[in-house]
């Protein structure tokens, strides 16, 4: 077995040193009723070539995004990732290290986290950011729990533009904690509706921009209304590239910003692993979930970095912790940070503008197709259209024509009664030929 270095002689000698007659003696504490002598009913050991062949065959049964004109978004976006990013994250010292519990021999990971936190704080326009959470949806749920701790109130208001999976994830956790969750009806351009739902018990309002329908919203009014009522404004973004073009949530008055960071540095990966971005005002820091990396000095006064404020965390506080989170999304955060360092401000702005341009080109191409009505008033790189046929059927028909044409809203929320709604995203990876193919295929399907 290629991954197991011990030889039969090693094993025999080591048992001798231990003073055991057989390996079974080391498992003596297992109750007799639960001991299994034979192998479980699964295939035996396989060579590298055999395993690679099986997995390649499975992969070949999928239509990869890059093999077709591709317009899916709705919380996961296909962007070009520079080759150096994937090379660097596979450095042994990054890939095969653990959480930086011994900072003297983990400065590589720790400095990256410090740089990552600074990048995330800058992008979101917030004072501080953490070292990442699992993904955008769990970061959203965590932020609502945090608002409960900060305000000691029990009610959360979620906008009708919040991604339905984020709603479900947040409701699941918040309800377990005994919170009262109000989810407003789906609305293409209705983030402001949360204002009317704020009351004296409201811990937070959660809005998304660009929202799940692609609509960009100035949340300043919502911030003012929430804060006047003693509630926090949580702003969610599922497309981190949008930070390059749009005013940051921090500038518009957000108290907490959470985002899905997959767009930068990370592949689609069929939904995971991704990287949750979390940023907030400094005054709320002690209630923040997840790991934080901070600057300090070593015994000789040299700058160094450590995990800090861990008295919030489960391994110290146990049942009094701010969250049960143990791990973060380290390697995905590294990929994000490397890609962001390569882009820089200039590259990110250019990338974001290019995304917006492609979406405008899609809008122009779809305008006038019979049975297709464009609904999103202000968009970044994603548009919502109403179709004269069920969107799920249209998407299947487009797939049969070799076009991955978007995400039917019914896929995210089967019971919302919005079966005619289709979400169409366009990133820098979309070409003029792709857009022409979408136009042709959609025209045919809608005819």
């Amino acid at each position, binding site marked *: 077995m290629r*991954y197991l270095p011990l030889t039969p002689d090693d094993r025999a000698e080591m048992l001798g040193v231990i003073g055991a007659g057989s390996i079974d003696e080391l498992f003596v504490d297992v109750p007799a009723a639960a001991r299994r002598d034979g192998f479980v009913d699964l295939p035996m050991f396989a060579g590298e070539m055999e395993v690679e062949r099986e997995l390649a065959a499975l992969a070949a049964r999928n239509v990869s995004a890059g093999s077709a004109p591709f317009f899916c978004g709705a919380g996961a976006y296909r962007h070009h990732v520079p080759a150096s990013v994937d090379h660097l994250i596979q450095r042994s010292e990054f890939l095969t290290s653990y959480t930086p519990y011994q900072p003297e021999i983990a400065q590589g990971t720790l400095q990256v986290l410090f740089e990552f936190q600074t990048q995330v704080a800058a992008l979101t326009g917030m004072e501080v950011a953490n070292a990442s959470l699992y993904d955008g949806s769990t970061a959203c749920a965590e932020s609502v729990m945090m608002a409960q701790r900060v305000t000691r109130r029990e009610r959360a208001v979620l906008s009708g533009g919040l991604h339905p999976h984020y709603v479900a994830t947040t409701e699941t956790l918040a309800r377990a904690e005994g919170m009262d969750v109000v989810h407003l009806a789906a609305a293409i351009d209705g983030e402001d509706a949360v204002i009317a739902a704020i009351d004296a018990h409201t811990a937070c309002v959660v809005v998304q921009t660009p929202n799940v329908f692609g609509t*960009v919203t100035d949340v300043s009014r919502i911030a003012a209304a929430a804060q006047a009522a003693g509630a926090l404004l949580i702003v969610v973004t599922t497309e981190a590239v949008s930070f390059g*073009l749009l*005013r940051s949530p921090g500038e518009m008055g957000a108290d907490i910003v959470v985002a899905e960071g997959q767009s930068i540095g990370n592949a689609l990966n069929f939904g995971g692993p991704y990287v949750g971005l979390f940023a907030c005002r400094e005054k709320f820091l002690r209630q923040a979930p997840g790991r934080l990396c901070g600057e300090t000095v070593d015994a000789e006064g040299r700058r160094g970095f450590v995990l800090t404020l861990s008295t919030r965390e489960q391994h110290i506080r146990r049942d009094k912790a701010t969250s*049960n989170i143990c791990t973060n999304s*380290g*390697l995905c955060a590294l990929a994000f940070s490397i890609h962001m360092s390569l*882009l820089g401000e200039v590259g990110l702005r250019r990338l974001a503008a290019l995304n917006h341009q492609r979406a405008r080109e899609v809008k122009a191409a779809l305008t006038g197709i019979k049975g297709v009505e464009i609904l999103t008033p202000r968009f970044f790189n994603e548009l919502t259209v109403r179709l004269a046929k069920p969107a799920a059927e249209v998407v299947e028909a487009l797939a049969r024509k070799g076009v991955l044409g978007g995400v039917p809203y019914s896929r995210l929320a089967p*019971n919302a009664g919005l079966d005619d709604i289709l979400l169409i995203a366009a990133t820098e990876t979309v070409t003029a030929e792709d857009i022409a193919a979408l136009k042709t295929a959609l025209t045919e399907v809608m005819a």
Partner: protein
Amino acid sequence: MSMMNTVGRPTAPVAASDHIPATLTGGRGLLQDEALIFELGGWDKTGVDLPEATDADDCLSGLLRDSPIGLPGLSEPEAVRHYVRLSQKNHAIDLALYPLGSCTMKHNPRLNEKVARLAGFADLHPLQPVSTVQGALALIDRLAHWLKTLTGMPAVAMTPKAGAHGELCGLLTIKAAHEAAGQGHRKTVLVPTSAHGTNPATAAFVGYSVTEIAQTADGRVDLADLEARLGDHVAAIMVTNPNTCGLFERDIIDIARLTHAAGAYFYCDGANFNAIVGRVRPGDLGVDAMHINLHKTFSTPHGGGGPGAGPVVLSAALAPFAPAPWVVHGAEGLELLEEAVGEAGAAFGRMSAFHGQMGMFVRAYAYMRSHGADGLRQVAEDAVLNANYIKACLSDLMSPAFPDGPCMHEALFDDAWLEGTGITTLDFAKAMIDEGFHPMTMYFPLVVHGAMLIEPTETESRGELDRFIHALRVLARAAKAGEAERFKGAPFHAPLRRLDETLAARKPKLRWRPEAKAPRAGQ
């Protein structure tokens, strides 16, 4: 092209000298100091070539950024050098044994990295038409089959994103099952004092109160104390097995029996499943729910702190309440049930967007498939053998916390052997760094004073184990010989000396700020 002529100029060692001159520029040989990107990068520089876009649409007027973001850019050579230099300040399992107990730092096969990057997995959108992702769903289905077979459990929830997230999923499943049975009044979770911090944190997070269960002198759950604390108010117990002392819970079948008799569920923390995989099925022990850390037992890379993956296997009683989405077999192939509908009608909700850590699933499946039923059993046996070998080779100098009987995959020592030396577990750990090893887990589990928890894993060769044992024996003798200064100031040979964690917490500095040092003007 000409070869450099070295003939006649061979290098040779000069006479040894006690005096090591300081370098003239502050250099430290090949170990490069590295500034922050904010001090290195240019504000007008980018390492990505993109075309200029046309101006933004009028629809976004008033919504566009009109102030600088504050992000430096690096060209590709600068970026590569920055991150390679930083990487060299990290310890890694690829460099040497990484004996963090309970963390399972084993070799990460590179085949798994290769197959996870196949376009048919990595370049798949989670919401593509289901007809275009049948291979991906088949992979999830096959991985689920392996996990269910290895654990002897009938169902598995695949979506939790890490071990602690799996615990959350398990307890939410249990909560849903109790509520469905009119048992919603059960609000207490019993947790042994030796548990991972995530156990009580998770229980509290979902609104349960936590009661600790006592431990016996031989490091196991105190059955009498458990029995006394069980009752109609108890929703579940959370027990790690093998436990955090590295010991198999001998009474585990009785623990399950008593728990079930009291109407509670048995949640098993599966962080240490790697010690028994292929030899013991948790389903045969009476477990109702158990998360499996794919990044531990099935060797997906730890990546400096994630991403992990924590699928939860479930008993028949709990299976109906597993969260959405479910992968199910339908008339036209595999299907995804993304809400509480159909077979998944009793699903308690959703753990996260999309379908779980697919990238980790591919790696874990490749790992399992490579080892097979025979290899996985050997994994557990070699992990346990290596831990017992270390225990046997160090017990004369250090004090094993539980000397009687074998340990499982990790050997636990306390600090009794350091008494009178003035050296602490922390000092000893830092001195290990100077000898070229990552320290073991320190001060955990909490039930053992000055705990040192050593987990070698099965992927260490006899030679590397002996090298590690030799280093610890030499260090232990030095500690007992009173060489305190070697320990108190350690590490001396790491990229940095001991760091001031108190300062970091007292005056938190969590981001670079421009006033700290003026950036170089745009380059």
